[in-house]
């Protein structure tokens, strides 16, 4: 059994940022465990640019953004073990991992940072009819094939869902010589960022079919075509008679991301049904003492910059915990999702909060001329105006301790949107 002060599970942007900040806070006994053969996580396959505007004030590609953190980890000499898969975590922080090099290993950690990221929602969760033919990939898998392995998934492509990875892949496949027929979105609005819709679809004349979905998949060995139909925007049910057949050999799915919390559950970490990630307090500590969570395993972020920022906080707090400097979680207030708000993080805030914290959430729909409000108990403590809120972009909101003092007897904190739905 090896003893580690701070054990970080995952060597992607969250794990790297947590490691770097823990080291800078003073921690010296850190270890990163990574399942893949290199550090960097999904950023390695995101060769498009647009990362780092908040963190580095310049637009970087995924590999470039990851390298900045990898260089820091190397410079500080923070140990990392790649090709190593964690298979169990116990509530008293014993971690079991397997690797080809060392076989089965046990680690006893004083503090654990969960930074495992998320995975893509697969076809199986969609209940789309048709055979299990080849030619159907999640957008991220197709991205891995093209950008890391130099392989070409197909020539005539349809994309289901309008998440950012799907949009980015529409452009990537076009660049590689494929014909992208359309991007099909069930909702009446896209889940992707505006700039991705303009620069990945509009630029190349790829239609975005809102309020449409795939109702049938043809082909037994290889995908031969896909039937698309309009849906009723209210019930989301396909409208008979609106079917259209698209002949294609590839279907890419970009239908959502799910935090990968199997290990968290083993450790006894309480999972929030709203985010599918851990329930955390303002220190990003989970319901299990000394276990922290950050990045996409905590909640799915829109920008990697926010992942780095959040994870840096987890790194510092994990070190404080190891040093015995992290205040005991005594009385906390629950953060409640009000109108238009889903998955606000953190879910618990200490009554003794002394530093400002950031609350993050995703709007449920598209709201114009909106106000985001925080109520402490039933007293409105803060508001922030926004011209537009969309589910594709996270909202960040500062919460300062003075709000708590405005209503000391409050039993909960509500985050809500005040607007007309458009």
């Amino acid at each position, binding site marked *: 059994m090896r003893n580690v002060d701070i054990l970080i599970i995952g060597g992607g942007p969250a794990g790297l940022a947590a490691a770097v900040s823990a080291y800078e806070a003073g921690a010296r006994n850190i270890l990163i465990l990574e399942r893949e053969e290199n550090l960097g996580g999904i950023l390695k396959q995101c*060769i498009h640019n647009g990362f780092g505007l908040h963190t580095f004030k310049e637009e970087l590609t995924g590999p470039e953004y990851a*390298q900045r953190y990898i260089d820091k980890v190397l410079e500080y000499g923070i140990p990392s073990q790649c090709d190593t898969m964690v298979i169990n975590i116990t509530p008293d922080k014993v971690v079991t991992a397997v690797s080809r090099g060392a076989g089965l290993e046990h680690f006893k950690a004083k503090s654990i940072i969960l930074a495992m990221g998320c995975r893509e929602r697969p076809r199986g969760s969609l209940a789309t009819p048709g055979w299990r033919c080849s030619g159907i990939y999640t957008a991220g898998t197709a991205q891995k094939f093209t*950008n890391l392995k*130099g392989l070409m998934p197909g020539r005539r492509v349809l994309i289901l869902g309008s998440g950012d990875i799907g949009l980015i892949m529409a452009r990537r496949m076009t660049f590689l010589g494929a014909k992208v027929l359309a991007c099909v979105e069930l909702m009446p609005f896209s889940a992707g960022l505006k700039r991705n819709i303009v620069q990945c679809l509009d630029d190349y004349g790829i239609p975005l079919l809102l309020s449409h979905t795939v109702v049938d998949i043809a082909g037994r060995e290889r995908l031969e075509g896909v039937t698309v139909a309009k849906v009723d925007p209210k019930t989301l049910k396909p409208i008979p008679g609106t079917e259209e057949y698209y002949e294609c050999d590839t279907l890419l799915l970009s239908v959502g991301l799910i935090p990968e919390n199997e290990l968290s559950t083993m450790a006894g970490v309480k999972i929030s049904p709203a985010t599918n990630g851990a329930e955390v307090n303002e220190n990003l500590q989970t319901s299990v003492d000394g276990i922290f969570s950050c990045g996409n395993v905590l909640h799915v972020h829109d920008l990697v910059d926010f992942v780095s920022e959040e994870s840096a906080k987890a790194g510092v707090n994990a070190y404080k915990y190891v040093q015995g400097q992290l205040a005991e979680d005594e009385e906390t207030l629950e953060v409640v999702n009000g109108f238009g708000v889903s998955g606000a993080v953190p879910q618990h805030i200490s009554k003794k909060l002394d530093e400002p914290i950031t609350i993050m959430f995703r709007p449920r729909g598209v709201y114009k001329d909106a106000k985001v409000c925080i109520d402490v108990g039933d007293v409105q403590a803060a508001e922030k105006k926004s011209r*537009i809120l969309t589910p594709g972009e996270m909202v960040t909101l500062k919460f300062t301790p003075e709000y708590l003092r405005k209503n000391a007897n409050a039993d909960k904190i509500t985050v809500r949107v005040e607007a007309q739905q458009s």
Partner: protein
Amino acid sequence: MIKEITCIGCPMGCRITAEVDGDRILSIEGYTCNIGKKYAQEELTLPTRMVTALMKVYGTTQPLSVKTSRPIEKSKIFDCLKEISRHTVMRPIHIGEVLIKNVCGTPVDIIATKELE
């Protein structure tokens, strides 16, 4: 001629309508802030884009990710991609290394975005 542009300056995504006569902009309408106006003017006169792509590397099937050193004219994107695909490079390669100078006769270079030992 009437042209429609969606502004990407923020999530508002304002629909901007502009009337152009060749290179001359006659009118721009529909923007709600100056970011939109500036974006529309750029899009109408000389739209540019960053291009990211992959390059072949000798002795490996693993491709190298590359990007334009700065945004390149939108009309040259596919020529630029073609030129990148004609090149094969030799390891080691470091981030920022210039791999193609003045791609397609523009002042833009193609640079590496990945470390490859």
